[in-house]
């Protein structure tokens, strides 16, 4: 450690006169740059992008909560300055272009992979701890929607679009991992919930280099074509060559827009040469006379609901070709799942029901539901479907009175400011697998103001505005599994205050009671983990789409501990065990067996732990398999 010294400077006026002039010149130039930036930014500010929807709400909140004391106000000022800086805007574009063309730099949001393949960073950098939650949350909602559509006579097929970084994993730069398992889990969770799902991941992987556009987040027409083929095969609706709709032909140039949304995201101009040769030829479907394939109309039996991946009807035309009939496309680019579906419902129900709904949903939406919960919890489109289009066949699920903890006195006028809890149902009264298998029906009326009903359960909150003038609403309950929080129903006011009368609440499920198949019950037998009762169905019984198992339990008994339902496997797969926790006297078990669609169901076992001092001689009193249609 030696002596510190001050910065050394020569004697003043030591600079030769010529150099001194250069020095003054440099001072003047740099001063002009700093002051010039200030003046230009002040005189010619850029209009910042205006946030909309949820982003606007978040931005408004951020501005309202900004404080000097914690730095948030300063941070906001710096953010706003960046947003409105004219100099920044004008300089960033050519600089970005130069960085990209010279060094292959993609900026903060875009990753440049091998052979110039671009990827959106935030679709690769997924928080490791949350990806399964997103898949689970989406799966239960899709199961509920699917069940509702099935009851309306519509078959729903969900086609999760894998992330580009997974399909094109070989093009990722060193050090980046595709995390294929995230996309696999989406398929796994959807199928486990009985959602009819098409695996586009394995369909697209053999065509990795051609399935996605190089400078775009979207798939190429080749990717759409392979996806349509995979969907046709999985559903069994693929038509033979001679029955197909229109003709498939190669297109010499990549004309399908958008081609370069990732270059746009970087602020780089897209050039024709940015589309590599291997993405040509592109494909299109035409009529035999050479005319473009007409877009499906309101009479089309198949509708495609989706996002920007279904934009321009191109994916729809491939589906039409391979499925041999007209497909009408509802596509809302950038919108969350169900948005296009809700639009379709608004337009076509109840008069012009399609027979098949193909729901295209990008996996990055599904995965991000795990960590963008605030965006997802609202589910306005799903809620709209649930609240406004009740299924035709419903069964009452009568519960013992003590199941309901009614914070609101039924039949009296409730005054709410902001919100108030109106109903609680503890766990142990209704054991179900979620996914809309159990629904909550509320009857009442709004006396003053506007209200919204929030149904809280473990997989998120479903919020639906109470339709004006309506006297009842029916919403699905997502999950109430062992250890879950009680089901809670909250009356939230949309106006500063509101008055509401809750007249009645009950559990229901969608199903044809008249078509229910009764199961034969055995007596209680000893089991290694307590007691067991088996439910037998006829040997030829197979599980219908979204078939539901409804089990009534004895009401004059103590609480049964650690109840499990076991569905013995008829294949090499392990038995399906559904833990239900403790069941109170008279509780209901309602299970969606959609995941076993088409499989035989010879036997179902209900197992519970014995209690030495209070044995339960009979737990199951009645069991039936309920189809939707």
């Amino acid at each position, binding site marked *: *450690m*030696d*002596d*510190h*010294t*001050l*910065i*050394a*400077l*020569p004697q*003043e*006026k*030591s*600079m030769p006169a010529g*150099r*001194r002039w*250069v*020095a*003054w010149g*440099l*001072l003047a*130039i*740099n*001063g002009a*740059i*700093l*002051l010039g*930036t*200030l003046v230009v*930014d002040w005189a010619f500010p850029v209009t910042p992008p205006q946030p909309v929807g949820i982003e606007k709400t978040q931005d408004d909140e951020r501005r309202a909560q900004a404080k*000097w*004391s*914690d*730095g948030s106000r*300063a*941070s906001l*000022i*710096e953010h706003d*300055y*960046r947003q409105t*800086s004219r*100099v*920044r805007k004008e*300089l*960033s574009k050519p*600089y*970005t272009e130069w*960085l990209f063309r010279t*060094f*292959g*730099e993609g*900026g*903060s949001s875009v*990753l*440049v992979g091998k052979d110039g393949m671009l990827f959106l960073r935030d679709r690769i950098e997924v928080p490791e701890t949350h990806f399964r939650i997103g898949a689970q949350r989406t799966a239960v909602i899709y199961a509920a929607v699917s069940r509702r559509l099935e009851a309306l006579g519509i078959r729903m097929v969900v086609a999760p679009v894998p992330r580009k970084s997974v399909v094109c994993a070989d093009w990722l*730069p*060193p*050090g*980046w991992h595709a995390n294929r398992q995230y996309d696999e889990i989406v398929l796994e969770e959807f199928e486990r919930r009985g959602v009819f799902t098409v695996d586009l991941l394995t369909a697209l992987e053999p065509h990795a280099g051609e399935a996605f556009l190089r400078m775009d987040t979207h798939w190429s027409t080749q990717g759409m074509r392979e996806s349509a083929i995979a969907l046709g095969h999985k559903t069994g609706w693929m038509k033979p060559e001679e029955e197909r709709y229109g003709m498939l032909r190669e297109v010499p140039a990549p004309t399908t827009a958008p081609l370069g949304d990732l270059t746009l995201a970087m602020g780089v101009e897209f050039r024709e040469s940015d589309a590599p040769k291997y993405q040509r030829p592109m494909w299109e479907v035409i009529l035999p006379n050479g005319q473009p394939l007409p877009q499906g109309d309101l009479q089309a039996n198949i509708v495609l609901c989706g996002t920007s991946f279904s934009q321009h009807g191109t994916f729809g035309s491939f589906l039409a070709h391979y499925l041999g009939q007209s497909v009408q496309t509802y596509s809302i680019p950038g919108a969350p799942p169900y948005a296009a579906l809700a639009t379709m419902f608004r337009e076509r129900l109840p008069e012009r029901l399609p027979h098949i709904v193909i729901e295209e949903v990008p996996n990055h939406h599904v995965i991000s539901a795990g960590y963008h919960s605030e965006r997802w919890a609202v589910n306005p489109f799903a809620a709209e479907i649930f609240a406004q289009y009740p299924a035709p066949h419903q069964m009452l699920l009568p519960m013992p009175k003590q199941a309901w903890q009614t914070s609101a006195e039924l039949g009296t006028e409730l005054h709410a400011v902001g919100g108030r809890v109106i109903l609680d149902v503890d766990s142990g009264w209704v054991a179900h697998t979620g996914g809309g298998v159990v629904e909550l029906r509320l009857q009442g009326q709004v006396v003053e103001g506007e209200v919204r009903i929030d149904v809280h359960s473990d997989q998120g909150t479903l919020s639906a505005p109470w339709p004006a003038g309506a006297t009842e609403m029916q919403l699905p309950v997502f999950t109430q599994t062992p250890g879950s929080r009680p089901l809670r129903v909250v009356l939230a006011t949309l106006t500063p205050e509101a008055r509401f009368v809750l007249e009645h609440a009950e559990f229901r499920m969608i199903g044809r009671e008249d078509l229910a198949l009764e199961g034969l019950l055995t007596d209680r037998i000893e089991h290694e983990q307590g007691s067991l009762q088996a439910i037998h169905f006829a040997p030829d019984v197979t599980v219908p789409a979204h078939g539901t198992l409804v089990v009534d339990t004895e009401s004059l008994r103590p609480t049964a501990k650690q109840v499990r339902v076991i569905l013995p496997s008829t294949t090499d797969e392990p038995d399906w065990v559904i833990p239900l926790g403790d069941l109170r006297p008279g509780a209901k078990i309602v299970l969606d067996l959609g995941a076993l669609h088409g499989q035989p169901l010879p036997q179902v076992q209900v197992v519970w732990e014995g209690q030495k001092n209070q044995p339960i001689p009979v737990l199951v009193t009645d069991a039936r398999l309920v189809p939707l249609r």
Partner: protein
Amino acid sequence: MVFASGIFLYFFLPLFLAVYYTVPRRWKSFVIALFSYVFYGWWRPDFVLLMWISTVVDYTAGQRITAARTSGGKGKPWLWLSLLVNLGLLGYFKYFNFGVDTLNAIFAPFGGPTLDFAKVVLPVGISFYTFQTLSYTIDVYRGTAGKVKSFGDFMCYVAMFPQLVAGPIVRYNTIADQLHERTHTREKFYRGMLAFQAGLVKKVLIADILGELADAAFDGPGLSAGYAWIGALAYTFQIYFDFSGYSDMAIGLGLMMGFRFPVNFDQPYRSISITDFWRRWHISLSSFLRDYLYIPLGGNRKGSLRTYVNLSLTMLLGGLWHGANWTFIAWGAYQGFWLIVERRSGKSSFYAFLPRLGQIAVTFVLVIFGWVLFRSNTIGDAMHYVQAMFGMGWDHGTLPIRPIHLVAAFAGAAVLWLFPTTQRWLYKAPLAWALPLQLVFWLALIHLHYVSHVPFLYFQF
């Protein structure tokens, strides 16, 4: 506020310079103090209060000590008060969380109670300004500096924004005269501009770009040996260019205000031993620790063993000064270990027999291992990282190296090993340096527009 931000460059700095050069001489220190409070309070105004406490306590202590001395006393209680307040603030704000977490970790395995507490937020730069104010009181107490002439000068000394949050640590006795009387010339201002530009270029075009690789290396999954070395090297470059870049900017801004600050770096990666490294790295801290800790502990005057103990203690505390984490303590211990080894062999390294280039190479590698400890989040992570550097890691991941990283690395290597330091360039300020510097400075300004906000590494210390 950070130097590498639009608000500072296009609003604060022009406004400050305009006001500073407009007001009469007697107001200049006050203007510096005022703008420094705005600079410091931009993100957390409440923390300006802490700085005021430090300022008032040490100003009063300095006055009282001087008064006590004229009446035959020493004013020791005032020195203790200053130590208590400054180290108390530093201890609470910087080490409270660490202390409680450590206690919880000790008692938790035995089923002991866990202390729940609200996390204390660390005020930026507290380590720097508390050391500065302490140096004033200690220097006045020792008689190596006279009391400050006015409270305005002292406010200016404590709060001076160029070096307030990340150094160099300017000791009172080195700047006392300048606080009262300094010259403002166009040549000084020009050289200040060049130093500032050089610092911004180092920070924006080298440190931040290589920082991406360092972050990926230390915060990501395990790496193969080659990539682990690249990651460690990236951090070695990042920390030098970030910190020396900040020092250059501080020195440059100081010159624009007429001040000459201490040199903080002198080509540290050309050191031939760890002892030599500490003569060249963060010189203002190492000399502070030497004069206010190592020598008062007895230095090397009380035998070999005591010297080693003093060295160890100084380096451990030096490590802890950087942050409340065991990794910093381990880094201090690591540096202390090599200093002791070198002292035992007569202040030269055990590889002194190598040619100079070989000595530089070995020292550089030892420094890299030190930075692995310094950068890792935990001691365990550091050990895993070192294992990976020897090819014994669990994973064999890679790093997202892009062409721009290579460009930044080559430019950094050239600056480190081929060119003189900023302060040496600054002396002559040749056009061969000044003109190309303008181009890269403008490039850095454009790059700043392009990237989002990246704070300086040394803010956390």
